[in-house]
């Protein structure tokens, strides 16, 4: 088994775990962590792609590494934004559930603009 295969299976496992957590776990903080787990899996995938040098037909392709760095920055910003929203939600509502999906605030007016 080559190292690329081992890392590929690691990536698949991370992505699978993350998807499971993001979909089934009701807590937003855990959903955010699960998103980061999927992200790590995808970045690992990029790393394997670069290691195999598929693009440039040389030993090591630097382009996926550049893509991963950009991806890490994007994922970091996403996490920061999500955490900020979560904290604000906790301050405002006192809890952080996403349980009630109903947008139907029938018979009650939300504060106006």
């Amino acid at each position: 088994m080559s190292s690329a295969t081992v890392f590929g299976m690691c990536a698949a496992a991370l992505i699978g775990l993350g998807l499971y957590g993001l979909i089934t776990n009701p807590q937003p903080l855990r959903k955010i962590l699960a998103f980061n787990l999927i992200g790590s899996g995808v970045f690992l995938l990029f790393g394997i792609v670069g290691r195999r040098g598929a693009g440039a037909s040389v030993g090591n392709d630097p382009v996926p590494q550049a893509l991963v760095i950009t991806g890490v920055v994007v994922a970091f910003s996403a996490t920061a934004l999500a955490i900020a929203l979560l904290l604000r939600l906790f301050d405002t509502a006192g809890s952080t559930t996403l349980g009630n999906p109903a947008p139907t605030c029938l018979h009650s007016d939300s504060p106006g603009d």
Partner: protein
Amino acid sequence: MLPSAPAPATTASGFLLVLSIVVPVAAVLLAFALGDRRVRQVAFAVVPIGSAIVVAVGLALPAGDGVLVYLLGAWPAPLGVALRADGFSVVMLATTAIVICAVALFAATEFRPSAADARAPFAFWVLLLAIWAALNTIFVGSDLFTLYVALELLTFAAVPLVSLRGGAETLQAALRYLLFALLGSILYLMGTALLYGVYGTLDIELLSRRLSGGVVTLLAAALMTTGLLAKTALFPLHLWLPPAHAGAPAAASAILSGLVVKGSFFILLRLWFNVLPDLPGYAAAQFLAALGAGAILVGSIVALRQERLKLLVAYSTLAQIGYLFLMFPLALDSSGRLESGQALAGGVLQAASHATAKAAMFLAVGSIYVGLGHDRITGIRGVARALPLSVTAFGLGGIALMGVQPSGASLAKELLLEETARTGQWWWAVVLHTGGMFTTAYVLVVLSHALARPDQSIVLVRTPRRSSGLTALALALCSLLLGLVPWDTFLPIPPGAASNLFGFGGLVKLGVTMLGGGALVILLSPWPRPGGLSAGWKTLMSIIGPFRRVCLGFGSLVEWGDDVLRQWSSAGISLLLCTLLLAALMFGAN
């Protein structure tokens, strides 16, 4: 390392594409430098400049062989990143500029920097400019990873717009939107990684030449498609859309509903039509359109049953998004290849027409909300006398959306109907007509209440500015006249298609749509008729009463189904099922 084909060079006016991105980004930075007080001036200075750049792109395009290219740093693909604009990009760029202008005018008074709450206005203007920059990048980007970054920028700018008011409900809606959008974009990124692994490039032009079927390619295509569907909120992946679009302030809702969902939709078009036109095949295209049909049915029925005006308009967006996906099977040619022809033109035109009409409707609803202090549909009786401008804008926007001649939607529908006849897929013609009837139905519900005679004279909580009504009206008129624009410069539409709109056949279709819409209102809308129960109404009810009860029962069943689908677990399972089904269908086609 050399590209396999002669590299395209930067065209003469290619730098305009850079400007279209750099100018709004620079404005965002400048706004941070100048601070709260000046942010509105910065926005008002940049909106005309940005619009002028879009006009310049539109003028330069026909001169430059129908495509503008700019190679960043003069590096050709596969290593370099290029910006590329074609006719479709220009149509979307122009639509975005128009909607941004109108929303900026509308929000000029609402989001004034004031001492009391300085953060919301500042955030609004900065986010507006950031959304503009992200959308322009999406429309001119020609590299799948550039598109990913632009898509994320768009999400990061759109999510805070939802929670501008800062209530617990809107914060929850924003968080839900962000988390689901992140799930969508990570799926897209996964597909990008797989494609890079196989082909060693992410440039759209190069990929389209190198692409061939294969398990990894098809899986990547399925992952990217599903990710984009989640971001576009196609049924059944729409759990985030209704609370987000209904909870945001009116100006923000107009941007979110009119423009933001079109960003991911446009990337999906690029992916299917420019990167992998050979791969999806008949079954996958039918599947996407079937989801679209489901969106029309569920979105419209739930819209008809909403009690709040804003939620009605938000669910109408859900239905209209479904409408956008009907073009995919119609664009297939005889060999199962997706053709960038008349069907794609119809779809893009539909997107442009929905952007302007829906933005106008949200702005009008915003004015009504300001005027009445609520937006309950049963409570807006007679509002047409108090707020004639806003109700007219809502009505005209709705009429444009229904596909009344000569609106952009009617031209788009006509183009798509011609394609259904050409390809022999009559069932999509049925869905197109039914969709038009449903649109008519929920517009009629609102208009019949707004135009009814009020019980007592209406007292306005606050008189909305005249200018806000006028802005919404201008946007609605724009949507209504889109069909008359000579599109053939930018879109593959036969010249003179617009003149076919006026004729006996068109009038008959319109009449059928109106009658069908009226019937749907009577059968499916649970709200009491405005103007009391007249004798004629009572006789009608005694005849169709039982039938109406069955329909109402069906409606509540659909509403329950929508509630279930908007749970996280069911949305997640739908997402995975969509991916697997798309992959399987594409695999079957290859």
